[in-house]
C-alpha cells in the first residue's frame, strides 16, 4: 500500500457521476500528476483525498491509516488552492504560522519553523507583508510555505500554477519540483496542462469522465498511450485507420489501395483493423522519387510556420491536415510541394476506441 491509497472511490451528485470507482496508489516520495480536462473529476478526487469532499463510496488511506471518515483537520495534509486562498487579513508570517498556532506550538519553535518554511520559498524578507502586497508568484510561494510548514504526510496541489503567467509558471515548476524533492514529499498535482504534468511527474494519471484512462510514466503516456483520448490529450497526434499487414519482419497498415504506412506496437494482429498515430516530431518529409517508396503516404505542403525552436509544416493528406515538426534549418519544401511521409506510426492497443 502506498503513501496515499485510493480504493474504489466513487462520487456522484444526483445522477451525475463525477468519479467512478477510482483505484490509485501513490508511492512514498512520488510526484504524481492527475491530468484531464475540466469536469473529468480530477479536482474532486483531490478534494476527496484531502477530506474537503466526502466520497459516495470507497476508502482513502493516508500513510497506512484509513482516513475515510476523518475530517480534513485531522488528516495530515498540505493543500495548495488554485487561487492560493491566502487569508487577506493576516500577514505572510501569520498565514504560514496559523497551522502551528492551532497545534499550540511553543513560540520559539513556531518562529523557527515558519522562518525555515519562508526561507525555503525565499520569502523571509516579506514576512510582515499582507498577501495583497505580494505578486502572484510570491503569493504562490506563501501558499506552498503554509502547506509544507506542518510537515504533512502528503502534499495536494489543485492547479496551483494556472493562475500565473507563462514565464513565471515555468520558474515555479522548477522551484516546486526542487522543493518536493528536497523534502521528499508525496505529492499529488492536479492540472489540465499536459506539459506541466509530463515535465514534473514521476507518474501521470490521465482521467476522462470520472475514470482513469491511463496511469504510467510521462514517457509511456506520451509515447505509448492506451487510447486515442490519451494520445490526443497529452500532445498533438495524427491518426491513421486501416488494416494491419505483416510485411516480413515488420508491420504495416494499409490506408488505401496504394498506401501503406509502417507501424509498430503490439496493438493488433495482422489482418485486423486498427488505429495508429504519429506525433508531429516523429515524421520526416522527403521528395518523392520516381521509382521508390511507391506505397508511402503522400501529401502536399500547405504552409510553413516558423516557431524559433522548430519549423512546422502543415501537410494536407487526403482531406486532413497534419503538422510535421522539424528543426528550423533552411526549409527544404515550399507550399505546394508534394512530399512523402517517412515515419513509423504507433498502433493503439485498443482498436475499439471511438474515433
Amino acid at each position, binding site marked *: 500500500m502506498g503513501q496515499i491509497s485510493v480504493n474504489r472511490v466513487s462520487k456522484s451528485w444526483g445522477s451525475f457521476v463525477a468519479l467512478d470507482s477510482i483505484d490509485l496508489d501513490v508511492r512514498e516520495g512520488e510526484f504524481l500528476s492527475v491530468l484531464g480536462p475540466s469536469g473529468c473529476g480530477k479536482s474532486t478526487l483531490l478534494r476527496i483525498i484531502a477530506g474537503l469532499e466526502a466520497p459516495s463510496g470507497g476508502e482513502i488511506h493516508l500513510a497506512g491509516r484509513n482516513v475515510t471518515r476523518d475530517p480534513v*483537520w485531522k488528516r495530515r*495534509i498540505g493543500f495548495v488552492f488554485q487561487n492560493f*486562498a*491566502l487569508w487577506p487579513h493576516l500577514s505572510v508570517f501569520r498565514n504560514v504560522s496559523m497551522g502551528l498556532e492551532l497545534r499550540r506550538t511553543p513560540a520559539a519553535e513556531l518562529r523557527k519553523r515558519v522562518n525555515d518554511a519562508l526561507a525555503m520559498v525565499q520569502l523571509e524578507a516579506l514576512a510582515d507583508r499582507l498577501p495583497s502586497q505580494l505578486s502572484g508568484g510570491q503569493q504562490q510561494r506563501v501558499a506552498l510555505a503554509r502547506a509544507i510548514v506542518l510537515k504533512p504526510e502528503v502534499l495536494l496541489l489543485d492547479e496551483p500554477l494556472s493562475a500565473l503567467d507563462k514565464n513565471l509558471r515555468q520558474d515555479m515548476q522548477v522551484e516546486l519540483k526542487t522543493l518536493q524533492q528536497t523534502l521528499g514529499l508525496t505529492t499529488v498535482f492536479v492540472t489540465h496542462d499536459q506539459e506541466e504534468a509530463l515535465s514534473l511527474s514521476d507518474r501521470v494519471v490521465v482521467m476522462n469522465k470520472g475514470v482513469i484512462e491511463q496511469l504510467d510514466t510521462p514517457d509511456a503516456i506520451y509515447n505509448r498511450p492506451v487510447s486515442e483520448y490519451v494520445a490526443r490529450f497529452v500532445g498533438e497526434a495524427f491518426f491513421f485507420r486501416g488494416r494491419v499487414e505483416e510485411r516480413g519482419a515488420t508491420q504495416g497498415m494499409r490506408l488505401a489501395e496504394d498506401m501503406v504506412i509502417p507501424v509498430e506496437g503490439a496493438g493488433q494482429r495482422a489482418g485486423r483493423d486498427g488505429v495508429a498515430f504519429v506525433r508531429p516530431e516523429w515524421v520526416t518529409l522527403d521528395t518523392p522519387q520516381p521509382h521508390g517508396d511507391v506505397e508511402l503516404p503522400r501529401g502536399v505542403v500547405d504552409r510553413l510556420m516558423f516557431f524559433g525552436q522548430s519549423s512546422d509544416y502543415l501537410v494536407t493528406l487526403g482531406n486532413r491536415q497534419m503538422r510535421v515538426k522539424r528543426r528550423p534549418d533552411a526549409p527544404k519544401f515550399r507550399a505546394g510541394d508534394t512530399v512523402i511521409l517517412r515515419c513509423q506510426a504507433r498502433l493503439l492497443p485498443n482498436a475499439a476506441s471511438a474515433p
Partner: protein
Amino acid sequence: MQKTLLGSSLWYGGAALFFAFLLAPLAILIVVSFNPVAMVFPPQGFTLKWYATILDKPDFLQAAWASTILGVATALLSTGLGVLAAIGLQRQRGAARAFVSSLLMSPLFIPAVIVALALFQIIFMMGLVNTIWTLLAAHVVVTLPYPLRNVMAQMEGFDVRLEEAALTVGATPRQALWRVTLPLLKASIIPSLIIVFVLSWNNYTVSIFLANKNWTTLPLQLRAYLQYEYEPFVAAMSTILIVASIVLLLIVDRTVGLGAVRKRD
C-alpha cells in the same frame, strides 16, 4: 448620476426637500435647547442650564442607563444572530434560502407599530409579562434585518476556499469561523453593531408597547415628560440623543465607512 438637466434638478430638489423637512426642524430644536426662557424660536438668549438640569432628574438618568444597556444587548444579540443567519443562508440555495431570508427581513417592510402590536399580543397570549427580556427580544426582531443585510452583502463575495484552507491546516470549523470568517466579516459586523445600537437607542414604537416601569427607555421617558412639561429641557435631551447618534454613525464612517460593505465586494 447622469449629468442631465432632469437629473441635476431632481438632485438639487431632493437635497432642498431633505434640508427643509429633516434638517431644519432638528436645527431649530437644537437652537431652542439653548433658550433660557421657553420652547420658542428664535431664542431670547443663551444658556446651558437645561443640560445641567438633566442631572437633577433621576428618572432621565435611569432611562438613559436602561436605553444604553438595552442598546448594547440588542446590538450584540441582533448582530450575532444576523452573522449566524447570513453564514447559514449563504450555504443554502434556492427556495429555502429565499424564504428564510425574506422572513427575517420582513420587519423592514411591515410598519413598526404593527410588528410591535403583534409581539405585544403574542407575549400577552403566552402569559408572559413585559420584562427586559421581552423588550430585548422585540428590539432584536425589528433590528435583525440590518445586520443580516450588511453581512449577507459581504458574504456574497466571500470565497469559501479561505475557510477550507483553514481546515487543511488543522482548524476545526469553529476555529475557522473565529480565525478566518469573522475577522473577514469585520467590515460589516462593526457597522452593524453600531447601527443596531442606534436603532435600539432611538426606538419608540416597539418600546411603548413592551416596556414596563422598571425599564423605561429614554425616548419613552422623553415622551412621558412632554405630556406634562413643555420646556427647553426636552429640546436639550433630544439634542443629546441626536448628537450621540450622529457621533456613533461618524465613528462607523471613519473606521470602516458606511459604504464599506459594498466597496468590499
